């Protein structure tokens, strides 16, 4: 079990990964940064989100990029996780991203009309 032990040691020496919430961060924003997302404008969205969080000094929010979520057609996709509750937004641009930070994260009310829907 030498290798497994080696892997455990590596794992323990690591930082908390960006996709887990911990004591400091209770909210997480994931932006789909696969090529599909980027092609649809995800880079601007990610930058806007970070800018907006910095402006508002929201330190409890972690931002991370992730790969393709699968629904390329609806890119850019942004997923917000607040206290374990996940919400995915579709077709996000910079303006929408700013509003989501304000409404969903600051005011605590998701913008349902932009949430990815069943159709």
């Amino acid at each position, binding site marked *: *079990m*030498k*290798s*497994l*032990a*080696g*892997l455990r040691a*590596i*794992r323990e020496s*690591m*930082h*908390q*990964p*960006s*996709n*887990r919430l911990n004591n400091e961060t209770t909210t997480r924003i*994931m932006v*789909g*940064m*696969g*090529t*599909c997302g*980027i092609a649809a404008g995800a880079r601007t969205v990610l930058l806007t989100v970070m800018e907006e969080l910095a402006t508002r000094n929201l330190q409890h929010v972690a931002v*991370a*990029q*992730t*790969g*393709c*979520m*699968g*629904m*390329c*057609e*609806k890119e850019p*996709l942004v*997923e917000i996780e*607040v206290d374990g*509750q*996940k*919400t*995915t937004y579709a077709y996000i641009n910079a303006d929408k991203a700013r509003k989501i930070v304000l409404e969903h994260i600051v005011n605590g009310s*998701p913008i*349902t009309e932009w*949430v*990815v*829907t*069943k*159709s």
Partner: protein
Amino acid sequence: MFYRSHVLVCTGSNCNIKGCQGITEALRRELTRLSLEQEVRLVETGCLGLCEHGPALVVYPEGVMYVRLTAADVAEVAEEHLLKGRLVPRLLQPTATVDSGYSLNMSPFFSKQKRIVLKNCGLINPDSIEDYVHADGYIALATTLDTKTPTDVIDVIKKSGLRGRGGAGFPAGRKWEFTRWATGSPKYLICNADEGEPGTFKDRLILEGDPHLILEGMIIAAYAIGATKGIIYIRGEYDLSIRRMEHAIAEARKLGLLGQNILGSELEFDVEVCAGAGAYVCGEETALIESIEGNRGEPRFKPPYPAQQGLWGKPTCVNNVETLANIPAILQHGAEWYQQIGTANSPGTKVFTLTGNIINSGLIEVPMGITLREVIYEIGGGIPEGRSFKMAQTGGTSGGCLAEEHLDIPMDYDSLAGHGSSLGSGALLVMDDSHCIIDLTKCFLKFFVHESCGQCTPCREGTPALYSIIDKLSRGLATESDMRLLKRLSRTMQSSSLCALGQTAPVPVLSALVHFNEEVEAHFKGDCPTCKCHTARGGRQSAN
């Protein structure tokens, strides 16, 4: 044997505590009672990830999950769902509503999927090895190194029935075995990420979304076949894939997951990225090898096969990205687990890319054997703008064109091959009724004319000749003898071209001729029903 339903019963340790053993037995009894053994397959799986709701089971292909079951509940599920096809709402997994937050994983888009290869895609940060390790990454590798010999690994893969996901569907375990027992050193492992098949972008998104999964698969494969050197050949257009992969390799090296004495074992293996330069044909394994060697990417004559004489004349195993991405899960959960997903001859899942006239274009992973209809209508959300379905092409540009009557074909290697198409790379192009099959065929052929390597006569000269006949047809000028020539040329290209590019180039043409005969006849008479072609005697001008 083909089962219409698969029932996955969770036998993870949590569910075991909660009594899933009783559930399994109850279900087995019910299936016998209802004489469903030939139709419904009972599969004991690992943790389904809903431990707090256990015991749980999932019915595929619908992907419906029943939770907190008792033995009595099982009888009801069997009676209602498995026999009569009706859901049992009171036992369903509770889902969040849109109002309280609605995430992608709860949409029907996800509920029909089974994610093995894509399990981390869209969930972890691909640039963070921490994310991957914390998502149980590299555990399969570590356990394999500790508990299995290379031969054991090959046996597991052989037993799992995993077939190559690049298109040809050759059993992965056998390919590994050939390389393992070939003489020559060093041995090479090549990950084929030269994804050029139009409509395919799964490898790109896997590389971008979960690069360490590929690395883990490659390290295990290298251990099994005895390769010391790995190369990931990524097409040059995939800039982001190349960067993410190079970053992942650097991180893995830093942690001793690549290089010498991997995880403290004897294993030595390192990987480098090689970027392509824009040639579809390099997806063919021997052309890819030529390209890595710095040559024109022209396929080699086989035999000898790469397993005998590949890169630099040494034994070489070439595996597709998705094939390698399946490896860690198979070793983690076992061959039996894997075999129970999908169909008997095509076990496991398949990643598809949905493109064309479909609402949810994108990347999905489903168990083999799911029908085209389910993929297009349930996962893909159907055809946009209220139009109706006309054609689906599976397997990329060299795949067959399927019509409405084929919507219930199970998507697996053999069923599709039986209908003149192929699973191929997992591309699924959907076309609505506003488009013309001849116009589309022309588009396919233009691609082949451009991408033929030009080495062998049937393909170099045959692809433009095919194009010119179809072009003639689209202009309403084709004659009977043109059509006979088209068939003769197609047969020759299929039988005599040096590689699969030339051998399969006529496939979409021939299948269109068969499955869309009426439309072909119309063009023959000078009319294009969808008015996409500039026919000489009709089409757009056919007012009279």
